[in-house]
């Protein structure tokens, strides 16, 4: 009979099981897509801080979704409640899934209690990008800062996240630091939890 033995077709994409998916995406394809994202936003804004904000907002949307996906896939639906827990989640798991490797380093800020820094020699999104001199301190890593902010916000750790170039002695290219400044309530809660 016609139709017998046909593979069951799901009518709705939401009914399909959540697979692990293909682990790899072409770097060139991503680089071109990201380049277009930056170019498109450049046409929409008048100044550099607006451009940075737009890239960050784009990253925020990614971060919120990545948190949900990774909590389900990697951590078996466990929720992080401690500061160091969520930070190491971002530093290791999120970085591994998004960029193929864990971040270079995670440090606690020396000057302020509420500051933490994730450093990378060179962010994957910045691999092919040369910032022109007249754009000053603009960093396309604002996209990654947005991703981190999205993850932290979704997990209940509101923070202000920014990306900075830090010049290194003896290196031609500066390394990138993602600076995370947690909100007051996060530190209070952390202190309460002991």
């Amino acid at each position: 009979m016609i139709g017998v033995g046909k593979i069951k077709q799901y009518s709705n994409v939401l009914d399909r099981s959540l697979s692990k998916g293909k682990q790899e995406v072409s770097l060139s394809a991503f680089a071109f897509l990201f380049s277009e994202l930056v170019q498109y936003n450049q046409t929409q804004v008048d100044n550099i801080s607006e451009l940075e904000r737009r890239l960050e907002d784009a990253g925020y949307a990614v971060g919120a979704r990545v948190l949900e996906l990774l909590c389900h896939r990697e951590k078996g639906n466990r929720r992080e409640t401690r500061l160091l827990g969520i930070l190491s989640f971002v530093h290791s798991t999120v970085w591994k899934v998004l960029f193929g490797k864990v971040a270079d380093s995670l440090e606690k800020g020396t000057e302020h209690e509420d500051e933490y820094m994730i450093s990378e020699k060179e962010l994957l999104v910045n691999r092919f990008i040369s910032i022109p001199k007249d754009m000053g301190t603009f960093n396309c890593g604002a996209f990654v800062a947005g991703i981190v902010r999205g993850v932290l916000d979704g997990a209940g750790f509101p923070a202000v996240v920014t990306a900075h170039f830090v010049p290194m002695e003896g290196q031609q290219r500066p390394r990138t630091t993602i600076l995370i400044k947690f909100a007051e309530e996060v530190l209070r809660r952390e202190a309460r939890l002991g």
Partner: protein
Amino acid sequence: MAAIYSLYIINKSGGLIFYKDYGSAGRMDTNDSLRVASLWHSMHAISQQLSPTVGCSGIELLEADTFDLHCFQSLTGTKFFVVCEPGTQHMEVLLTVIYELYTDYVLKNPFYEMEMPIRCELFDINLTQAIQKDRVALLGR
């Protein structure tokens, strides 16, 4: 003792978008390099018309007494040519390496406008490394 004297990159309309000088003799100022670039662009185009064989893609090698000129044209019409010492080997390979650097660090840069002069720091850094590596390999052989 540089094997390569200079590198030029010209866009599809013949305008010079990148010029780098490696030899000490015959250093040119900006206007001269622009003129040489458009000269070469025209010669390349005319040679395609003059060729007795069908489907000629233009001049690939020009040999003179004091220099060789190797030219590589991409599918999009961007030309990469290098002026070097007579008899230098493996320039075609170097040109394809430079083409790859161009596609990586210039075309994937959101701040680069197509057909405009190349002002990308990463391209310069990697180009210097590639030329340096080539020079070392040449001298070592």
